[in-house]
C-alpha cells in the first residue's frame, strides 16, 4: 500500500501530482482479499434522493454507486479511460446519429428480475434525458433507443452527437434503474428513489435519518466472487472534526472526500494504523475559480481582470490553503485531464507591481486612502477551502488597491445571490470538471444562459467568437478535431479571462490499514467497491 500513501512533504515537492497520478499504473499487489466484514465510513451529508439516474452528483454516487451501476466506469488503464460495467462494449456510428451498446449477460436486479436492454432504454429516455441534472444537456438530442435484442441497446440521436462526449459521460451519467419498478406511477415519487434497487454488489439495507445508511452484500452479484464485504455502513457525522476523531477512536475505518480537514492530515498520517491516500479522485477534479461579474464597469475591462490574475499568488494558494494537496491552474481544463488539456495558453505570474501598473493603465488610480475601488466578494460556502481562499483573495486585492468586502452567505443564499440576482462583483466558485468540457465547463463562459442556472455564466460575459467556438465544438464529430477546438477554447478563455482559474484540487481519503483495494480507479470513492475488502 505504501505506493499510495503519501506524506505532506512529497506532496509539496511535486505540486503537479494531480498530473502525475493519472499516469501512475495501478499497483497490482498480489494480496488475497479477505471475505466478509463490515466497513464503517464517515458521511457528512445525507442525500434524500438516492437515485443516481435522476441526481448525478458525487454526494449521491458516494452511496448509490454501490447499489445502482452505470454502463461503464472510469479506469486508470482501460481503453479510452473506461472499464465495462453493465455494458461490455460500445461503438459510435460515423455520422454521429447512433451509438450501440452491447450489454452484460446474466445480470439480475436486486429483486431477482433479469436486467435487459429495455431497462437501459427506459432509463435513458424516461430519466436521463428529461429528469437528470446533467443528462438533460448531454442527451438532449437523444430521440429513441432501439432494443433489437435483450442485450443490445442502440441510442438514436436527432442531431449528430460526438461519441467522444457520450463516452466521457458514461461513468457519471449512465446509471441504469429497473424499468419494472419505475414504470408504475410518477418517477419522481417512486419509493425506490429513497431505497434504490439496482444491479450493484450491494443492496440497500436501511436508512436512519441523522444516523446511518446500511448497505448489505448482494449474494447474486454478477462479478465473480464479489463483493468481498458483507456490509457497508455510512455513519452520518455532521461536524467537520468528527471524522478524524472517529478514525482515531477506531469507530470508523474510512473517511473519504476530505472529511478529515487538510490541516489535520499531517498529524493523522503519523497515527499508527491509519493511512492518508490522495489517489482515487482523478476523475472528480474540482476547480477553484474566481467568477467575475462583467456588469461592473471596472471588471468589464480586461486589464483589470488581468491585474487581478497577476495579484493572485497561485503557489501560495496551493501551499497554504490546500496544504499542497492541489495543483495550480492555467485555464478551464485541469492539468490532469488526459484528453483535452493544453499548457499552451497565456499565463499570469504573481506580480503585484505589474498588477498595479495594469490598473493605473486602465485609469483606476489609487485614492487618498490607497484604494482604487471597492468590490463585493462572495466565496462559495460549500468548502472550507473556497472560504479560506476568499479570505486570501481579500488580502491579495488589498495589495493592489482594491477594497473587497466579504459576504458570507449560506449555500442557498449564495446560489441565489450569484446565479439569480447577480448581486456580486467577484465570487469564488468550485465548478467540477467532468471529463469533457461540454458537460459542465463551457457553460461557465457561454452567453445566453437563463438566470437562475447554477454553475453557469451568470456574470453577464458575452463573447461572440467564444460562443461560436463552443457551438462548433459541440457538433464536431471527429475526435481529434473536437479536441483541438477545446484546446483553442482554453487559449481564448485564458486570454480574455471571463473567469480566473486559480487551482485544481481533488479529495483525500484517510483509511485504516485494514482496508484493502482502495483508490484503484479514478472515481474510486463513487465507484461500486465490489473488490474492496477488510482485513480482520
Amino acid at each position: 500500500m505504501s505506493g499510495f500513501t503519501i506524506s505532506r512533504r512529497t506532496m509539496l515537492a511535486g505540486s503537479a501530482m494531480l498530473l502525475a497520478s493519472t499516469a501512475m499504473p495501478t499497483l497490482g499487489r498480489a494480496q488475497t482479499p479477505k471475505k466478509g466484514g463490515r466497513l464503517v465510513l464517515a458521511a457528512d451529508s445525507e442525500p434524500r434522493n438516492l437515485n443516481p439516474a435522476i441526481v448525478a452528483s458525487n454526494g449521491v454516487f458516494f452511496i448509490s454507486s454501490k447499489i445502482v451501476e452505470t454502463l461503464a466506469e472510469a479506469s486508470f488503464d482501460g481503453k479510452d479511460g473506461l472499464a465495462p460495467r453493465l455494458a461490455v462494449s460500445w461503438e459510435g456510428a460515423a455520422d454521429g446519429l447512433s451509438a450501440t451498446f452491447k450489454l452484460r449477460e446474466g445480470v439480475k436486479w436486486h429483486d431477482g428480475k433479469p436486467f435487459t436492454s429495455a431497462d437501459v432504454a427506459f432509463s435513458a429516455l424516461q430519466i436521463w434525458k428529461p429528469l437528470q441534472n446533467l443528462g438533460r444537456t448531454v442527451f438532449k438530442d437523444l430521440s429513441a433507443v432501439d432494443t433489437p435484442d435483450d442485450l443490445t441497446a442502440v441510442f438514436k440521436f436527432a442531431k449528430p452527437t460526438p461519441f467522444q462526449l457520450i463516452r466521457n459521460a458514461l461513468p457519471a451519467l449512465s446509471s441504469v434503474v429497473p424499468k419494472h419498478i419505475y414504470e408504475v406511477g410518477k418517477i419522481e415519487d417512486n419509493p425506490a428513489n429513497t431505497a434504490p434497487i439496482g444491479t450493484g454488489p450491494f443492496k440497500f439495507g436501511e436508512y436512519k435519518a441523522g444516523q446511518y445508511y446500511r448497505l448489505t452484500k448482494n449474494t447474486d452479484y454478477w462479478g465473480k466472487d464479489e463483493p468481498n464485504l458483507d456490509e457497508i455502513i455510512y455513519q452520518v457525522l455532521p461536524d467537520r472534526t468528527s471524522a478524524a476523531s472517529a478514525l482515531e477512536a477506531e469507530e470508523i475505518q474510512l473517511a473519504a472526500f476530505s472529511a478529515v480537514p487538510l490541516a489535520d492530515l499531517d498529524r493523522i498520517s503519523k497515527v499508527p494504523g491509519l493511512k492518508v491516500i490522495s489517489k482515487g479522485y482523478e476523475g472528480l477534479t474540482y476547480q477553484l475559480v474566481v467568477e467575475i461579474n462583467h456588469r461592473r464597469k471596472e471588471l468589464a475591462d480586461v486589464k483589470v481582470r488581468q491585474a487581478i490574475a497577476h495579484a493572485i499568488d497561485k503557489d501560495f494558494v496551493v501551499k497554504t490553503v490546500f496544504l499542497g494537496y492541489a495543483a495550480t491552474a492555467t485555464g478551464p481544463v485541469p492539468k490532469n485531464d488526459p484528453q483535452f488539456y493544453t499548457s499552451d495558453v497565456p499565463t499570469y505570474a504573481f506580480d503585484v507591481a505589474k498588477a498595479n501598473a495594469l490598473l493605473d493603465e486602465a485609469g483606476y488610480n489609487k485614492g487618498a486612502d490607497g484604494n482604487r475601488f471597492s468590490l463585493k466578494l462572495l466565496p462559495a460556502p460549500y468548502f472550507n477551502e473556497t472560504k479560506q481562499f476568499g479570505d486570501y483573495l481579500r488580502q491579495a486585492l488589498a495589495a493592489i488597491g482594491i477594497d473587497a468586502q466579504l459576504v458570507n452567505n449560506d449555500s442557498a443564499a449564495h446560489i441565489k445571490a450569484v446565479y439569480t440576482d447577480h448581486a456580486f462583483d467577484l465570487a469564488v466558485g468550485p465548478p467540477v470538471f467532468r471529463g469533457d468540457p461540454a458537460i459542465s465547463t463551457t457553460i461557465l463562459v457561454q452567453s445566453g444562459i437563463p438566470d437562475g442556472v447554477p454553475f453557469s455564466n451568470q456574470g453577464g460575459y458575452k463573447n461572440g467568437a467564444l460562443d461560436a467556438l463552443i457551438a462548433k465544438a459541440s457538433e464536431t464529430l471527429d475526435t481529434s478535431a473536437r479536441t483541438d477546438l477545446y484546446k483553442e477554447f482554453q487559449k481564448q478563455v485564458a486570454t480574455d479571462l471571463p473567469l480566473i482559474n486559480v487551482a485544481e484540487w481533488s479529495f483525500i481519503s484517510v483509511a485504516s490499514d485494514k482496508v484493502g483495494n482502495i483508490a484503484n480507479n479514478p472515481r474510486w470513492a463513487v465507484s461500486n467497491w465490489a473488490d474492496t475488502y477488510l482485513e480482520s
Partner: protein
Amino acid sequence: MSGLRRFLHTPEAVAGVVILAALFAMALSASLLFPGDPQSIAGPALLPPFQDWSLPLGTDRLGRNVLAELFHGARTSLAVGLAAAAAALAVGAVIGTLAGFAGGLIDEVLMRITDAFQTVPGFLLALAFVSVVGPSLGVVVVAIALSTWTGPARVARAEVLSIRERDYVAGARVIGMHPLAIAFREVLPNALPPVLALSSVIVAAAILTEAALSFLGLGDPNRVTWGGMIAEGRTVLRTAPFLSIVPGIALVLTVLGVYLAGEGIVETTAVKRGLS
C-alpha cells in the same frame, strides 16, 4: 459605608473590574499596537506561539498574526456584547413599560408577543435570523438582541406594575401629564435598576452566542472575533491547539469579568437600596 468602598471590598468585583479594564485597554490600543488589517498575512501559516518574537502568539491557518487578531477581536467581541445588551435592554424596557403602564389590551398583546419570543429557543431564532439576513456584525447584534429582550421586558413590566400605583405617578396624572410622558419620564427611570442588573448576563450571552454562530459558519468574515477564531481553530484542535485555546482563554476571562463586575454592582446597589 459608601457604595464604592463596599464594592472595592469585594475581591470578586475588583477582579472583574480589573479584567474588564484590561480588555478595554486591549480594545482601545488595538489600532495603535497593530495598525492595519489584523487579517493580513504576516508570516508562515500555523506558526506555534513563542517561536518568533515578532509573532509572539504564532499564526493561524493563513499566516495571520494571532496576537493582532486577539487585540482586534477584543474590540469586536466587546462591541458585539455591549451593543446587543444595549439593544435588548432598550427594547425590553420600552415594551415592558408600555405593557405594564397601559394595561388592558395593549398589555395583553405585548405580553403574548413576549411569550411568543420566549417560547422559541433563543439560539434557534438567532440562527434563523442570521441565515436569512446574512451574517454581518450588525445583523448578529440584532439577532442576539431579538433572542434576549424578553427577560428585560418582563422585569420592567413587573417593576412598572408596582410603581404605577405610587403617589408621584398619581400626582403626575392629576396635573394632566400625557400618559406616555408619565410612562417614560416618571415610571421608566424608576423601573430601570433591576432591568440593568440583567445587562451582565446579556453581554456574556451575546459574546457566547456570537461564538456559537461562528461555529455554525455564520460569522462576519470581514471582522475578527474571538468566537470566530475559536470556531476556525477547532478544525486544527489537535494539530494547533493554541489557535482555539488562546481566544478561548480570552473569552472565558471576559465573560468572568463581565459577570463578576456586574454582580458586584448589583450587590452594592441592592445593599444601598435596602439601607435607604
